[in-house]
């Protein structure tokens, strides 16, 4: 595999919830890719489909979800190429990928660990399952992992239960579980949202240093632009089940191209930004998922919407220079540069 073939490549992914009240297109044509050793940040408001998109990579969707179209190509380091979207969610193949090649960290460290098993037991489970180590060897590996995630008193913690740990320690345990088999991809779904600010900073530092040491790729989901800037190489911004803009982190910060990205960034108090500006929030409400607006799904809230176009025609996905993408009519009119903002 050359440096440039992505580790994961999601193409035109669609996930639907078919409910009595109608169909919710939680993910509606998402395309994403992550290269080896790269950190991709996904940003978006609540309900924009971030979790559902990344969970598709592990086939860890709610029972009611239907993977309706698209492909999720995964290229494990041992070679080959698997379309995860085609696998049976309960089948052997996907199970042998989970945790072995793709690890996942969840948002709620409080409840994401089993309350009735010790930390050691929970870290050992994937080790024994995928690496086939014996009890003793697995326990040693678990201890190493706890040391790796800088868990205080790792020996004691092996036999501790989650309720005896603080939130930050639990999240460390979670990370240890996710990294147990040295996966080539780590998915972190808002791993710091439930933590206080100091702990959040510690966990972010930990993830960054682990990434440098182990070199795995990370998909990092967050609401918070500040956090992405810190950790990500590239960013994808999602709105209503679609990626509206993606590109290298510095470029996007410097020159956001999509009105939604701009609005989102304006709503984040940035260090160094002028103090007197009021913190803007995006006006309007997220549309009803059952009745998606016609045209560009953002036009009900977009301050730059072009009447007659944006409320009628679907916004196309436009490739910009420098590996950037944007989904907006403003760019289709003059493909070359786009309006100068900033």
């Amino acid at each position: 595999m050359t440096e440039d073939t992505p580790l994961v490549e999601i193409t035109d992914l669609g996930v639907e919830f078919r409910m009595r009240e109608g169909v919710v297109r939680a993910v509606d044509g998402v395309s994403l890719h992550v290269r080896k050793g790269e950190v991709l940040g996904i940003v978006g408001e609540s309900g924009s489909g971030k979790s559902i998109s990344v969970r598709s990579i592990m086939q860890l969707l709610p029972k009611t979800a239907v993977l309706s179209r698209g492909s999720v190509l995964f290229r494990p380091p041992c070679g080959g190429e698997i379309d995860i979207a085609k696998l049976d969610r309960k089948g052997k193949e996907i199970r042998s990928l989970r945790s072995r090649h793709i690890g996942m960290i969840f948002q709620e460290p409080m409840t994401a660990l089993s309350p009735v098993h010790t930390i050691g037991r929970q870290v050992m489970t994937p080790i024994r399952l995928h690496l086939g180590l014996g009890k003793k060897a697995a326990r040693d590996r678990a201890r190493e992992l706890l040391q790796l995630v800088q868990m205080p008193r790792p020996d004691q913690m092996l036999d501790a239960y989650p309720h005896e740990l603080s939130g930050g320690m639990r999240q460390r345990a979670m990370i240890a579980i996710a990294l147990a088999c040295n996966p080539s991809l780590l998915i972190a779904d808002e791993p710091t949202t439930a933590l206080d600010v100091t702990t959040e900073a510690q966990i972010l530092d930990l993830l960054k240093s682990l990434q440098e040491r182990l070199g795995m790729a990370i998909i990092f989901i967050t609401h918070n632009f500040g956090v992405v800037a810190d950790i990500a190489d590239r960013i994808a911004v999602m709105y209503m089940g679609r990626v509206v803009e993606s590109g290298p982190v510095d470029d996007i910060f410097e020159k956001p191209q999509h009105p939604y990205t701009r609005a989102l960034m304006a709503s984040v108090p940035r260090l160094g930004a002028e103090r007197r500006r009021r913190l803007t929030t995006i006006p309007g409400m997220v549309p009803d998922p059952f009745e998606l607006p016609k045209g560009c799904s953002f036009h009900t809230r977009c301050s730059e919407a072009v009447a007659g176009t944006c409320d009628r025609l679907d916004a196309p996905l436009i490739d910009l220079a420098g590996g950037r993408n944007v989904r907006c009519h403003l760019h289709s009119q003059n493909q070359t540069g786009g309006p100068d903002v900033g």
Partner: protein
Amino acid sequence: MLAYLTKRLFWSIPMLIAVSIVAFIIIQLPPGDYATAYVAELRHQGDTVDPLMEQEIRVHFGLDKPIYVQYWWWISGIVLHGDFGQSLDYNMPVSNLIWARLGLTLAISITSLLLTWLIAIPIGVYSATRQYSALDYVFTIFGFIGRGFPEFLTALVLMWLAYSWLNMDVGGLMSAGMEQQPWSFAKVIDVASHIWVPLVVLATSGTAGLIRVVRANMLDELNKPYVETAYAQGLSERRVVWGYPVRVALNPFISTIGWALPSLISGDVITAVVLNLPTTGPLLLRALKNQDMYLAGSFILILSVFTIIGTLISDILLALSDPRVRRG
């Protein structure tokens, strides 16, 4: 853990004392005392008894003493010598009468408890993991119906059905005439053909309730994030379900084993009367009807003690299975 155990053990002592007081009150409740009943029994047999003798009997048994002294004599007799008093009706020590029957009651109750779990837990887990499937509906309906059937009615209906369809008289522990014979293969078969009725009766009512509890708890647990974590580790559905949520979902239920026992024993008492089983039920009923109060009181005492021990055991089991409890 040890501290929890000690505390829990310590708590059961006042419970035991309270139970013994209740049993003693029940013994004392009917008008008159043992002496009156004794004399009445003698008169019934044709003896003439003068009031003086009644008084003597009263003094002899300490019935003229204050009530707390009587209680002390009664309870210390039981605890120190295993002496439960005298059954008037059978004219022999209560302890000679009760143990065999208690044993059978306990055997039937515990067997049906195990049967209940064996049936209800897998069904409850299945119903929850396959919510709204056809079988889930079937089990739910069964649970509803089982909830409305009192044990004695189930027993009556089963007896009737067994008689009219299988032409079997399933009352009693074995067929008439088998009792005198030594144990043999035929006798075992015969007992088995009778014993299933009380087991089915008791297990039905228990199962119906338990399926509901297990299903509801499982549905709660299956939505918890740690289940997803377990799936994310690449475990198979079976290992995830049985290794994680089931263990958590069973906790509240383990803590109610203690309560299942009283209701099972209650159920057994009344079922046994209907089915004419040689367990505590019919004997207790007869003792109560004949105001053979030492016998009746002893039964109530021992049954209650059993359930207190049952609750204790279930609390210990709960502490073993749920680390969060041990701290308490």
